[in-house]
């Protein structure tokens, strides 16, 4: 009986253990949804999930919801929206394929290394590979005085080391990441085998051209701003980067819907410019036909919003004026051929014989501009 109880407890314990090993992220999903989403998708691409996406993912219940999630996930990460191909999806799927095909196993510098032996997609090497792809430089070393080591280096645009990932073989089975230590001797102690002098470890590494392993034990990157934490963060989706980095676009917003009466042009306000000089005083003049402006209805009145900017450069002086004018009219007046709006600048006392004048007018998205040399 006691034996039967012991067996029962052992079975219950094993069942609990088994349950823990197959930890399910999607709490409310059906079995086939878990298979498609969690086992086939999340388990491979989880390093690219943001915290929000993880939370969203946990709530998925159906296959349909899962498909929408996956489509959005890729769409947000498309690096070039003008092409039909999703380049980022292709890139990550290639990384999955590389891991599954054990591309590093037959690589001269990493011969014998298998992702599968290092916990597959859950292991540190696969995590790094999924985040950063194939390293630019790899090296593996088997030591007598230290555990097996492997280093992956990713370069930057200037040929410097952006990331140095050092892995050590734990329990002679799987490679796990080694985080750099400030103190080199502590680092060496961590990778040394039992009952070995630290000097001997150092010597063996130097003799086997293992300087790169020594550097990687104490420093993660040539750029001091890059920390292992940053290197393990999921990369920002392309659409988010674009939002942050894209230039701001500034333009006129045509009030097409508000316009009741429009002139016959799309971007031009026809107008007559002239000037008058009396007793050394310059006055800039504009004459605009009402029919050459755009009109909106405001409190039962037809209003044209006109912006005028004038600048006169005279010797070292700059005379600048800006006016926002609301011209009020009637439909009948607007259609009359000889109904005008007149503008005159404030008189400017001239000092030079020749001055330069710039006039800019804007109405809705339409504008006109003059640049004139005015002789006294």
């Amino acid at each position, binding site marked *: 009986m006691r034996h039967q109880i012991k067996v029962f407890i052992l079975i219950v314990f094993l069942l609990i253990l088994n349950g823990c090993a197959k930890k399910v992220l999607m709490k409310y999903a059906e079995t086939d949804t878990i298979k498609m989403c969690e086992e086939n998708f999340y388990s491979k691409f989880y390093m690219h999930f943001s915290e929000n996406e993880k939370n969203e993912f946990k709530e998925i219940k159906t296959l349909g919801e899962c498909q929408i999630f996956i489509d959005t996930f890729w769409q947000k990460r498309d690096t070039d929206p003008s092409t039909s191909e999703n380049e980022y999806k292709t890139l990550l799927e290639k990384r999955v394929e590389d891991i599954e095909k054990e591309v590093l196993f037959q690589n001269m510098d990493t011969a014998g290394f298998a992702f599968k032996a290092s916990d597959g997609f859950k292991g540190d090497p696969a995590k790094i590979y999924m985040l950063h792809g194939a390293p630019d430089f790899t090296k593996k070393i088997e030591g007598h005085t230290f555990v097996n080591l492997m280093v992956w280096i990713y370069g930057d645009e200037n040929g410097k080391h952006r990331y140095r990932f050092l892995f050590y073989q734990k329990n002679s089975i799987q490679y796990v990441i080694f985080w750099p230590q400030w103190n080199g001797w502590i680092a060496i102690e961590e990778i040394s085998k039992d009952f070995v002098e630290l000097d001997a470890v150092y010597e063996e590494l130097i003799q086997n051209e293992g300087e790169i392993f020594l550097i990687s034990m104490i420093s993660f990157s040539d750029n001091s701003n890059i920390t292992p934490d940053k290197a393990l963060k999921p990369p920002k989706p392309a659409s988010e980067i*674009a939002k942050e980095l894209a230039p701001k676009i*500034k333009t006129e917003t045509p009030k097409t819907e508000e316009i009741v009466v429009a002139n016959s042009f799309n971007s031009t306000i026809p107008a007559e410019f002239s000037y008058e000089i009396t007793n050394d005083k310059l006055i800039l003049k504009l004459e605009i036909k009402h029919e050459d402006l755009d009109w909106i209805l405001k409190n039962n009145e037809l209003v044209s919003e006109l912006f005028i900017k004038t600048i006169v450069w005279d010797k070292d002086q700059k005379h600048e004026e800006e006016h926002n004018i609301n011209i009020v009219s009637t439909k009948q007046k607007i259609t009359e051929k000889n109904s005008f709006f007149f503008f005159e600048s404030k008189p400017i006392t001239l000092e030079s014989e020749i001055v330069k004048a710039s006039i800019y007018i804007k109405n809705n998205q339409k504008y006109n501009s003059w640049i004139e040399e005015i002789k006294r």
Partner: protein
Amino acid sequence: MKILILAMFLLQEPALLPIQQGPNNPPSVNGWKKVTEIHLELKNVIKSGEKTMTATSIVGSFRVLQNPELESEFVFMVSKYPPLTFVPQLLQSAENTRDEMVVAENYFQKVKQEKLKEMIKFSDTILLIKWRESKDLRTGETILLGPIENWLLNQQGKWIFESTNDKTIKRELVSEEDLLLGFKFSLKENYHILRLNMSHLGGEK
């Protein structure tokens, strides 16, 4: 080479806006084949606090069109549309990788093309130059056949016409203080300016 670089700004076939009819008005070129289209761009370095950045403004475009019924006949057409200015974000460039910059540029190009398409709906033709050319049978060089016909929309909204044997239309860059403002197209004493809106540049000069 210059044409090749500028041709990167080629658009996807927006419809040509008809030119208004009048006594001096240029002929309709609807249905003519587009040979090339180039946007009239200006770049200005602007200051914002301690940082400087280059803003790009587009004030119009020019096209070369070919008469499909008479292949030796061409027009050079300038369109004016409401100016667009692209002001870059202030970046901590060390933080952003080249890949991120490429991604941002890819997305920006798409938005830029969409915005330009939108603006072209509000364009006016302000200049048209029509000519015919043929090949010199002896040298193989392209030569001008007959006069050049020039039409310019002046600032009063009237078309000015001039038939000449040489290039008559002048194009000048217009600047105000340290800023490139736009382009001035002149036909004798008449001119038309395509320019940016200074307020779009923001920042301090």
